[in-house]
């Protein structure tokens, strides 16, 4: 039985439908990340799970029980907010213990639980302080402590790291992952940061305009995006999307990518595509991740299908660990992720290679993957 089941959930604000029939399930111990651009409804979805927003139709089940009309405090959930939402007038210990106090837990028991959580999060020395005397990272820990102490069946995180600086964000990300692994807790996590989504999730749900685009494991989302939106949204730099046409060449089906100047690039149909579905002359969108575009020496040696092409280097972006190279192909920019010491210069003509094992095709009409 799944810990969290959401079935055909709809939410309307007046006449505007912000969640248009969401179906998701999450197993016990799973880490579900809701990701999407701002305004896609991911925070609203989280709030409906928490019970802070009423739903218009559909069903939410937690541990098998329908919770549609249950008060947030009765849903067996705990939530960590973006602003941490620590009560400014209470000490750290009081903040962590407030929920237990409201439920009428005896003081001695409360103190024991607070201490145990403080030890897990290494905030024992902060228990007497007020939230205003804490740093951002410490506040984050206290907010997590307040959630942990409830031992809920689901933790809800609402963009918990977006108020932290870049370095602390990475530290806390690892902290959350460690917490998930050691406690085996079930987590629903909202973020607009696709790196957070990829690194933390066991399951990612990509939302757009209140509609679920794809639900799957991080590698499914990354390698087999359901449509061009998911392909474009997940991954940084984004997946390269090039328009092409299906045509016969030397006796086999190929994707032909026309170029403004020079020979068109001829690509054998990627293995991920069922060739029978493609008709000659059909337009397709060819998608390939930047790391599957490289110079000939660095392309994956085990790749079964590699195609070389010449192109002019337009922009070189050294990023330390990698060098991102923007090249011109098919009248569209194409980003390649190359080794840090790759010998490329602006304006140079260079031979690149596509690793077609990693390529996908999309239908330009429906934007869905073929």
């Amino acid at each position: 039985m799944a810990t969290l089941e959401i079935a055909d959930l709809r939410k309307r604000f007046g006449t505007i439908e912000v969640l248009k029939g969401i179906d998701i399930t999450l197993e016990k111990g799973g880490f579900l990340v809701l990701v999407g651009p701002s305004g896609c409804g991911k925070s609203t979805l989280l709030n409906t799970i928490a019970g802070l927003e009423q739903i218009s139709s559909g069903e939410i089940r937690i541990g098998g029980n329908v919770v549609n009309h249950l008060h947030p405090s009765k849903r067996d959930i705990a939530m960590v907010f973006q602003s941490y939402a620590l009560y400014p007038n209470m000490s750290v210990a009081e903040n962590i213990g407030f929920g237990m106090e409201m439920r009428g837990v005896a003081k001695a028991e409360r103190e024991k639980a607070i201490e145990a959580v403080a030890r897990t999060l290494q905030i024992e020395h902060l228990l007497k302080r007020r939230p205003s005397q804490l740093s951002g990272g410490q506040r984050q820990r206290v907010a997590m402590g307040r959630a942990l102490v409830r031992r809920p069946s689901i933790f809800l995180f609402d963009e918990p790291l977006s108020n932290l600086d870049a370095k602390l964000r990475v530290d806390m990300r690892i902290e959350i992952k460690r917490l998930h692994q050691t406690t085996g807790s079930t987590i629903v996590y909202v973020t607009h940061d696709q790196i957070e989504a990829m690194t933390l999730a066991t399951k990612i749900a990509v939302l757009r305009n209140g509609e679920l685009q794809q639900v799957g494991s991080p590698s499914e989302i990354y390698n087999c995006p359901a449509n061009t939106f998911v392909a474009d949204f997940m991954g940084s730099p984004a997946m390269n999307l090039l328009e092409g046409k299906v045509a016969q060449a030397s006796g086999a089906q190929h994707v032909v990518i026309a170029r403004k100047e020079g020979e068109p690039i001829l690509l054998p149909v990627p293995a991920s595509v069922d060739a029978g579905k493609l008709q000659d002359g059909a337009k397709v969108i060819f998608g390939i991740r930047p790391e599957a575009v490289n110079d000939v020496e660095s392309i994956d040696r085990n790749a079964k299908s590699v195609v070389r092409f010449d192109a002019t280097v337009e922009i070189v972006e050294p990023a330390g660990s990698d060098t991102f190279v923007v090249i011109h192909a098919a009248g569209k920019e194409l980003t390649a992720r190359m080794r840090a010491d790759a010998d490329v210069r602006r304006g140079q003509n260079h031979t690149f290679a596509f690793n077609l094992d990693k390529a996908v095709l999309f239908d330009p009409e429906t934007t869905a993957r073929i």
Partner: protein
Amino acid sequence: MTSADLVTSAPRRLSGHSLTTRIVIYGLLLLFALVYLVPLVVMVMTSLKPLGEVTGGNMFALPEQLTFRPWVDAWGEARIGVSETRGIHGYFLNSVKMVIPAVLISTLLGALNGYVLTKWRFPGDKLVFGMMLFACFIPFQSVIIPMAVILGALGRIGVGLYDLTGWSFGLGNATVNLVIVHVIYGLGFTTLFFRNYYETFPNELVKAAMIDGASFFQIFRRVLLPNSTPIFIVTVIYQFTNIWNDFLFGSTFAAGDTAPMTVALNNLVNTSTGVVEYNVNMAAAIIAAAPTLLVYVVAGRYFVRGLMAGAVKG
């Protein structure tokens, strides 16, 4: 930089300006300080002189023969209008008995209104708030007669309750009536103050408390109220000053021995018989003004800070 820093941070130094500019600025400041302080000084000095020295001497002269007799007279001996009771102390107490419940009730209700209007929004909440604001702008003279009718009806209910239970529940009592009137007409302002303050109060705190299982009133009492000190003090000072200084409602709805301080002061000063005892009048006036001054001195810095907090945060 917080709003408090904005208020308390030092103004631009004047040393950068020329001598003439400085003389003009400090000269003007001094002049206005004098204009405001002279009446107070005259009041204090007059109240410390025997009557002969007041009527015969110079208003600005220091007392030759220092006496506290006028203060004692004002507090316990002076005739107030036609009343049997002597001195203003009884009326002072009336005012205290009126102002403390009126301030506390109107402030707490205002806080509750502000809480509901910002954190528990309902269809039409803006309209309700807009209509409550009318209470801030109604000329009070226009509500006196309807109010009198309502208080009369409450008084009759009080009589009925008295017959039934032996206790009128305070209905019909002049001080209770004044508390009711001041609470009703104070609500507009207290609601305005608290609504604007809670508008910027993070909603996530309320959500977190909901998930923690706190009820409607627990959220109010444990989360909102403890974080409302600045606006609470602003509202208390504002309400205290207004209610203590009110003359219109006091003179209309409370007569004789039940009148508040302001009405008693008027009756003392506007006496048409005998000699006018200026020194006693001045002492009584200072006593009448003392509580509001005290409240401002004690909590004044929060007043400025609280008002600015509202202004800066919108």
